[in-house]
């Protein structure tokens, strides 16, 4: 087992039996379900909406080169700089170069999941820049020195008491357990940061080819301020966020809001099409769009799972996943948690290192059913399992199958095994679930069925002989 798999199993074990943790997730998810399903019901036809959304993303992704070139042409015509990066390392370098060229010191960021992917904050901090996350949840996670717990709800695992302690320790503010007062503390601190910042870094939810724009979805207004006040704006975005046309947003924005948080629309859906234009009064002097591949083209090259690139990162598959609800966000050890993370991480970071996530599934299909762009998530988990074994057959597993075949081909051995097993089974109770138990992974939380006192074969051999007339009662 790889280190990642061991970490996953240990964390999952620990958190599944942590009732406070499970109760926190349950409480957050109950609020999500209560908001989402009535909102979804208001759509005249949610299912046809999903189909249209899936086809639109399919059209975008299957002509990705054409649409990216169209975006670039349109964006550049309004003075935008477009950068192309294949790896995390290249993306980090491009961003550091822009910051250095402007002699910038202070950086404010709105939510950018791709920057978690390339570990941007750690690098910028190590180079001595001040980097501040401005999304409330991300800010809390930054103070806590933890990655986001859930890629839509970054600090859903924390209580208001823990957040109050955190603010007291880092900002010296008085204790308060009022969510509004806590939010206002962050608002005051961060207002100063937007005004002072030299550079604003944002992500993007969509790239619109037709008009050379990006679209950012948010509730707090932090992305709008990040894109309004600093003199340089940098947008880091994965190449797969493409939409062919501006009007496609008329469907995608309400679907993302409904599936993500159960809102009709999130508070601010903002499309940016360039740096400050002639005649405009504010906005950055320069806008840099940094496109990141980071193995997205590896996933693109797999037609079977290509639809995983349709993902709009609404997080709905996490919210309905029985595994996520038990093991929580950190156990995954990935930037993207839950079913979508389990599907794409093996493509982005190596199948053998991350294949274990595809086994952490009950294959119930709740993720596929909830996905607003119809990604076939639970089948992709099976595809990953198949591909992992095809690429590198497990030695223990093939040994087990060989042993099983040997046994099943020799009835006398099977019979003897049963008899010995029947004698030894009472002794299993002595080691059940502990380190000496060969089957402990299964038996530590489950009971093995008892071996029947008489096998069917023995019963049949010794059955009482009945005459044809006595048959109607059936076997005793």
């Amino acid at each position, binding site marked *: 087992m790889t280190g990642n798999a061991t970490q996953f199993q240990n964390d999952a074990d620990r958190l599944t039996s942590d009732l406070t943790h499970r109760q926190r997730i349950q*409480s957050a998810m109950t*609020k999500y379900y209560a908001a989402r399903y009535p909102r979804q019901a208001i759509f*005249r*036809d*949610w299912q*046809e*909406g999903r*189909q*249209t959304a899936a*086809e639109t*993303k*399919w*059209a975008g992704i*299957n*002509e*990705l*080169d054409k649409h990216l070139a169209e975006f670039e042409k349109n964006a550049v015509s309004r003075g935008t700089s477009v950068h*192309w990066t294949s790896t995390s390392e290249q993306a980090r370098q491009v961003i550091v170069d822009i910051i250095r060229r402007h002699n910038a010191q202070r950086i404010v960021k709105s939510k950018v999941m791709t920057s978690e992917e390339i570990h941007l904050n750690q690098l910028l901090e190590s180079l001595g820049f001040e980097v501040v996350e*401005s999304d*409330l*949840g991300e800010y809390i996670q930054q103070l806590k020195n933890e990655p986001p717990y859930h890629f839509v709800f970054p*600090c859903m695992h924390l209580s*208001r008491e823990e957040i109050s302690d955190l603010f007291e320790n880092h900002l010296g503010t008085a204790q308060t357990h009022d*969510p509004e007062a806590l*939010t*206002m503390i*962050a608002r005051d601190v961060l207002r100063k940061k937007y*005004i002072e910042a030299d550079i604003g870094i944002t992500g993007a939810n969509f790239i619109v080819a037709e008009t050379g724009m990006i679209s950012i979805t948010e*509730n*707090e*207004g*932090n992305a709008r*301020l990040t894109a*309004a006040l600093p003199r340089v704006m940098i947008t880091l975005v994965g190449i797969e966020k493409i939409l062919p*046309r501006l*009007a*496609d*947003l*008329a*469907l995608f924005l309400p679907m993302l809001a409904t599936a993500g948080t159960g809102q*009709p*629309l*999130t*508070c601010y859906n*903002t*499309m*940016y*099409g*360039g740096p400050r*234009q002639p005649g*405009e*009064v*504010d906005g950055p002097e320069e806008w840099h769009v940094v496109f990141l*591949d980071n193995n997205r083209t590896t996933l*693109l*090259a797999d*037609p079977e799972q*290509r*639809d995983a690139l349709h993902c709009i990162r609404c997080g709905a598959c996490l919210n309905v996943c029985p595994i996520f609800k038990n093991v929580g966000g950190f156990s995954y050890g990935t930037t993207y948690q839950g079913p979508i993370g389990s599907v794409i991480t093996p493509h982005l970071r190596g199948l053998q290192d991350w294949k274990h996530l595809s086994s952490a599934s009950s294959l119930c299909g709740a993720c596929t059913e909830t996905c607003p762009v*119809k990604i076939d998530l639970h089948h992709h988990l099976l595809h990953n399992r198949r591909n992992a074994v095809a690429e590198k057959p497990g030695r223990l597993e093939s040994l087990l199958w060989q042993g099983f075949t040997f046994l099943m081909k020799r009835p006398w051995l099977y019979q003897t095994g049963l008899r010995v097993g029947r004698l030894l089974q009472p002794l299993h109770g002595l080691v059940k679930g502990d380190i000496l138990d060969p089957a402990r992974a299964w038996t530590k939380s489950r009971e093995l069925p008892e071996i029947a006192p008489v096998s069917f074969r023995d019963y049949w051999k010794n059955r009482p002989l009945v005459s044809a007339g006595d048959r109607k009662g059936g076997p005793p």
Partner: protein
Amino acid sequence: MTERDKIFSRIRDALKTASPKPGSHHLGHHPTAQQPDSLTAARTAASGARDWLPSVGHTEAEWITLFTKNSFDLRTSVIVAADAGAAHRQLRALSEAEGWARVATHGHGIAAGASAALGLNQINTDGGYDVHALERCDAGISGCDALIAQTGSILLTTRSGGGRALSVLPPHHVVIARLDQMVPDLPSAYELLHHTYGPAQWPSMITIITGPSRTGDIERILVLGAHGPKKLTVILY
């Protein structure tokens, strides 16, 4: 070979094998669903979005009612005034109730007129502005491109909204709009944008504002005014 060329060549190699149409088994069961024969056909499927989105009614009166109802749910205040004079009086009443000392506005016809009628200290963002001064304003008063009944939203750009910051930095954003700026749904809002700005006059920022700034990051409990305005008021006439 540049990094751009490498990425594009990887994409083109990857796309040599087509991927199956999503959920194709599902097509054809709905009377208005079209089976796309090609990517071009699939692209036009988005124009069907209107049929799947929430209902909006057919008349302007229904749209205004829906806008008002959605605004109430979002905690946006909507004030419908009889004419421009009444709208100015409503704005003045709001200013007095909240004790505004300074406001920010821009040279947009009806927003500037209403702000001037207040007789307060004013920042006009049109000629550029000091960000600290804008931050100290009690309200930002702007126009907009349209109001969207379907979602209770305000469609605003750098041109109709006085730049990027006026509508998001002050703690109270007031939008002055005419009733005939109401559009029924999101697809019409995008049609309007194309009509107003396309294909070559796009502003650098277009935003759809749906309620005052909010967050649910702490225990999923709603708090207004996370970073943007705590209050949003639409005065319509």
